[in-house]
């Protein structure tokens, strides 16, 4: 095998999953959410297409029906998680100053807020409060 240049053993290197401390988790979660989003995006586009031209009462009723609600919530969860990971990469690629941390935090706040707004609205439509 290759010559060992460090006093650290190979086990010690992998034990804490590299400098990012998370190993391939980010890469993998981006892929898993991407795979989930293929059928969910198609379903989302079909749901929106079916709602074009309908008034508020009909839209609220359809969006609040169990199947549509669940598909919409799955779409919202997958896409906000996927875009959280994606924007993190964009920020890390282009921002190298100390403000990077601020932008990363703002990214987290934005994605969680959007996710919560959407889920709250869908649940409110479902339970009709």
């Amino acid at each position, binding site marked *: 095998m290759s010559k060992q240049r460090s006093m650290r053993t190979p086990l010690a290197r992998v034990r804490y999953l590299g400098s990012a401390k998370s190993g391939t988790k980010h890469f993998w979660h981006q*892929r898993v959410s991407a795979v989930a989003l293929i059928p969910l995006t198609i379903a989302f586009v079909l749901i929106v297409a079916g709602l074009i031209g309908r008034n*508020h009462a009909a839209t609220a009723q359809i*969006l609040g029906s169990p199947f549509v609600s669940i598909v919409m919530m799955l779409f*919202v969860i997958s896409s906000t998680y996927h875009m959280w990971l994606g924007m993190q990469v964009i920020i890390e690629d282009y921002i190298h100053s*100390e403000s990077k941390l601020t932008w990363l935090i703002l990214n987290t706040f934005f994605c969680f807020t*959007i996710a919560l707004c959407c889920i709250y609205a869908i649940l*409110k*439509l479902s339970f009709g409060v």
Partner: protein
Amino acid sequence: MADLKPSPASLRPLSPHLQIYKPMLTMMMSIVHRITGAALYFGTLLLAWWLLAAASGPTAYGKFQWAMESLVGQLVLFGYTWALIHHMLGGIRHLIWDTGRGFGPVEREWLALANLIGSIGLTLLLWIVGLLVTGGAS
């Protein structure tokens, strides 16, 4: 890094970047994939507005519908449709690449072209069907 004063040595170009290379289809498609992703990120504001308006009541939903039926709203929605489909097809292309397939000189060009033609074609198809079904008054 930020504290270092620029010396003549540090002002020299470190590595070739975008302006050095001839623009190629796969390169442009990579850039567009990131741009559409960023656009969809902020596009979720529209999704949240739509769902919250529907949950709020007829008045709030009427305002949303009015905005989306305006010329600007329709243009934004058309762009949103294309960005969503383009990013999804681009994602499928990346997932194919993740398996190690499709890197050949012919395949990668073909995949990039199929992505572009597919996204434009599907967007136009969706909008033409949508406009026909609703009689133009979406």
